[in-house]
Structure formats: C-alpha cells, structure tokens
C-alpha cells in the first residue's frame, strides 16, 4: 500500500510520459521511442494502481487473468490486422474505450464508497455530474464508433441515412440528457442514470448514420476526441491525474485532426456532422449529364509516357486502398526510378478513410517517407512535372473546386494535377466521386483515362515497362 500522495506523483509521471509519446510523433525517427514512452507510462499507471489498492487476494489474481485475456485478444488483432483495415480497427478500438468508460462510471455509481465519492443515494454532487457526463460521452463514443466500424467494414452501406426531423430528434435527445442529469443530481435515482446511458447509446447511433463514407476521416477523428473527453470525465470522478491529462491530450488531438480534415474539404465541422452531403448531390448531377469525349488509353500507352518522362508525381486515393494496389505501385515506381525518372507521391489531407491513411499504406509497401509529400509541399511541382499518375483519387483533383463557385466542392484545396504535362487517370469508370460531381479533368486533352482496376492496371504497366 502506498500513500495517496506518492501514487498521485506516479500518475503525474505517467501523464508526462504520454505527452512525450505524442511528442515523439513529430518525426518518424523519434516516433518509435515515443511509443516506448507511452508503454512505460501505461505500465507505471497500472502498477501504481495495484499498489494503492493494496488488495493482493484472489481478486488480484482475477484482475491479472482478465488483463491477460484482453491483452492477448488485443495483441492477436494487432498482429493479424491488414494495414488496409486500419480505419475500421481504429473505429473499433474507440468503441472499446467508450464502453470501458461507461462500465467504470456504472460501477462508480453502484459502489461510490470504493472511489471515496460518498455513499449510495448520497454521492457527492460534483462526482455525480462528472460520472454521468463520462458515462454519456462514453456511450455516445461506443455506439457511434460501432456504426463507423460497420460502415468502414462495409457491413453497413456507406451511404448517408437521413430521414425528416433527424436533427430535431437529435436536439431533443441531447437536451433530454441534460435535463435528466439535472434531476439525477437532485434525486440520485438509479433509473435516471440508466436512462441517461440508454439515450446516449441512441444518440451515438443517430449522430453517425447520416454521415457518408468519404466523411469518415472527420468522424473517426471526432470519435477519437470524444473517447478522450469521456476518459477525462472519468478522470475527474476518480480524481486521477493520469486520466485527466490523457483525456485532455486525446480530446484535443482528435479535435485538431477533425479540424484538419474539415479544412481539407473546405467544409465546416457542423456541415459534415449534420451529414447527407453526398446523397443530395448525386441526384443533381445525373440529370445534367452530357456525353463528352474522353481519351482512352491502355497500359502500353501509360508505360511509354512515364518511361519518357523526367518526373512523375503519383496521386493515390481511396481507390488504391480498395484495390490494395500499393505494392504494385511501388514496383512500378522502382522500375521508373531505374530508368532515371524522378518520382514523388502527393497526398491530399482527406485521401482515404482516416487521417494519414495513404501514408501508412505507402509505408507498408516500403515507400520511403521522404518521397511522400503533403499537399502544400508538392502542389507547386505539378507545373514542372511530366506525368501525374492518379490512382484511385478523384474529387481531390477536380479543378472545378477552383473555377466554379456553384460547385459543392468549391474552395476545397485540391492537388493541381491539371497543371502537369499529361495526366494518367486510373479509374474503373467515368462515374463521379463521392461528392457526386463530374470531374472536368477526364475530358481534358492532356488526360489519358486508364479504365481498369487500380492494381491490375499498375501491374500491366510494370509488365510493359
């Protein structure tokens, strides 16, 4: 048994180690060390908790057993999961944090004396507010992440689900949670606590169903943020510094990522969250569709163009992830580099289904990270590049975002692919991207459309090189 003050100091140390873990991610070289800091912080927090509870009876053995069960499940998932499934894995993990927060809040409510929060029916007011907030945010995180997981996994359609009065219902439910919390503080009734948890589960579902597949980067970041706030809420209840610091770090991290993602689409956070963007636009564009000529090419044409180029920029998008084309792409680039072609990769902030999705896939295919550039770093290079190879990206290259104020994506920062001497566009059909608008780039003189699966086409190009 160690004193409360000593354990508080250790919790502070583990909080600082978590800050260093995030700090390490400022560059790939320091990131691995950062991860060890994170692990050390977690280890300290767990050991100190055991020491401060000081109960090493049968309960302790059970805790270790449950810890190992969970740990081995987690480790198996971590080693088995393919890199392309990373977005749904992260969504799944968020749901676990959310549910764990709900469970801890429930046990604190049922047995407040274990946490020094008063007695059943007479819990300290502040603690009651903190634990019900933690439980509500945790429940929203849990059910919201489950929906995000189902959508990303393809078990549930990625299309937005909207119905009339949706926003009003959400608003009413949100307000009712606040009102119930108020009455819970006055009466301390169990039934109110359970109702808050139940409504919060419902809100989580309703909040995420209207959001479409390509907006998932924002959703995942937002849920990341929520899981942090839930942890912080529980941290206040337990008066635990490690949990408060971590909750604040994770909460602000997720919020910043959502902001970056929204900025990448030039949309406000509320616009994304209220959802239903893709659904309304799709009907619009199909009515005003006209047949325009496109230049159709094959793998040999593409190979010829790229072999004779002096610089090539690759623009990957979600289509590359779906087709798992990253390894074929790396092979193609290797051959090109052997031929003296300068190759770099251009990543749009919202390419893929989660922040940094493309970078992880390219890293998996052994693409050195110093060949991969962000939008601002590389955008001016398109003007001097011979060939832009667009693989599985669409809306993020659409010049209409710069020219047509009527367009729904007007103002969205795009990769200036159209400025390169020629554009190779690997795509399965002419169908519009997620935003439901036609890409002007398809019909340009310097664009060659390669209609095929991203992986097959890239492999064929490698052959004809």
């Amino acid at each position, binding site marked *: 048994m160690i004193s409360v003050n000593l354990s508080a100091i250790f919790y502070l140390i583990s909080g600082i180690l978590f800050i260093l873990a995030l700090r390490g991610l400022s560059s790939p070289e320091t990131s691995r060390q950062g991860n060890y800091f994170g692990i050390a912080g977690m280890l300290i927090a767990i050991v100190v908790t055991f020491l401060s509870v000081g109960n090493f009876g049968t309960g302790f053995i059970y*805790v270790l057993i449950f810890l190992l069960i969970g740990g*081995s499940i987690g480790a198996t998932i*971590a080693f088995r999961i393919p890199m392309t499934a990373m977005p749904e894995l*992260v969504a799944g*993990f968020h749901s676990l944090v959310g549910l764990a927060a709900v469970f*801890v809040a429930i046990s604190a409510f049922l047995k407040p004396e274990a946490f020094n929060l008063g007695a059943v029916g007479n819990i300290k007011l502040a603690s009651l507010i903190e634990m019900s907030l933690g439980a509500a945010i945790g429940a929203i995180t849990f059910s919201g992440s489950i929906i995000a997981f189902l959508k990303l996994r393809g078990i549930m359609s990625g299309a937005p689900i909207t119905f009339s009065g949706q926003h009003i219902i959400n608003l009413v439910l949100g307000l009712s949670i606040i009102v119930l919390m108020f009455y819970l503080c006055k009466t301390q009734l169990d039934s109110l606590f359970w109702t808050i948890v139940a409504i919060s589960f419902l809100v989580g579902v309703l909040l995420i169903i209207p959001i479409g597949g390509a907006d998932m980067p924002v959703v995942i970041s937002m849920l990341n943020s929520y899981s942090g706030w839930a942890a912080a809420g529980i941290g206040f209840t337990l008066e635990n510094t490690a949990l408060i610091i971590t909750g604040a*770090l994770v909460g602000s991290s997720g919020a910043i990522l959502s902001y970056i993602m929204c900025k990448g689409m030039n949309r406000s956070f509320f616009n994304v969250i209220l959802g239903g963007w893709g659904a309304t636009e799709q009907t619009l564009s199909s009515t005003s569709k006209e047949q325009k000529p496109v230049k159709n090419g094959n793998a040999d044409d593409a190979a010829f163009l790229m072999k004779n180029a002096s610089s090539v920029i690759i623009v990957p998008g979600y289509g590359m992830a779906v087709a798992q084309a990253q390894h074929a792409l790396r092979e193609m680039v290797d051959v090109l580099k052997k031929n003296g072609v300068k190759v770099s990769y251009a990543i749009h902030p919202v390419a893929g289904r989660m922040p940094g999705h493309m970078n992880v896939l390219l*890293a998996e295919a052994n693409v050195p990270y110093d060949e991969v550039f962000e939008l601002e770093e590389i955008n001016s290079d398109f003007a001097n590049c011979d060939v832009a190879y667009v693989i599985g990206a669409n809306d993020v290259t659409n010049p209409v975002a710069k020219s047509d104020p009527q367009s729904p994506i007007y103002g969205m920062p795009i990769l200036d692919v159209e400025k390169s001497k020629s554009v190779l566009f690997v795509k399965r059909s002419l169908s519009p991207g997620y935003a439901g608008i036609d890409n002007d780039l398809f019909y340009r003189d310097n664009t060659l459309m390669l209609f095929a699966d991203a992986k097959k086409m890239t492999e064929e190009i490698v052959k004809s090189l």
Partner: protein
Amino acid sequence: MEIDPFIFRLSIFILSIFVGYYVVWSVTPSLHTPLMSVTNAISSVIIVGAIIAALAGSSSNIFEGSNIFGFLAIILAAVNIFGGFLVTQRMLQMYKKKKK
C-alpha cells in the same frame, strides 16, 4: 478559505488541453494514423478506474454487482492497450527513409 481540490484538477485539465494542442500540431501529417492508434492506447489508462472498481469491497464475492463491470472494463481496456500500442509499433516500424 481553502481552494477546492476540484479547481486544481480543472487547472491540470485545461493546461493539458493546451499542451495537447501544441504537441499535436507538431505531429507530422504522415503519422496521423499512428497518432490515432496511440491516443487510443493511452486513453485506455481508464483501466486504472476499472481495476479500482474490480477490487472494490470485500474479496469474498468478486463477481457481485459493481465489480463485474470493473472486470468487463478491464478486458475492454486491455484489448485496447495491447492492441493499440502493438499496432502503432507495427506501423511505425514501416516508416523508413530512402536508402542511399
């Protein structure tokens, strides 16, 4: 008059939000996916609460009412801790520099 300890915790919370703000802005965009998985792992420090809940009260019957929620939370948080850190490690191992 003494300051309520809650105010101290609130101060830690708000200062940590600021620390988080500056630290996360300095994370390179190519590591945003590992950032999400590692924040996931560290937010599972909620296991601290789960352990206290699981060990609360007399150890005669550990599976009564509130304790069982503690044990369930331990499993969930443990999945996240091991899964989160290991998958982050696996991802970070892949980020390599150009061979010269």
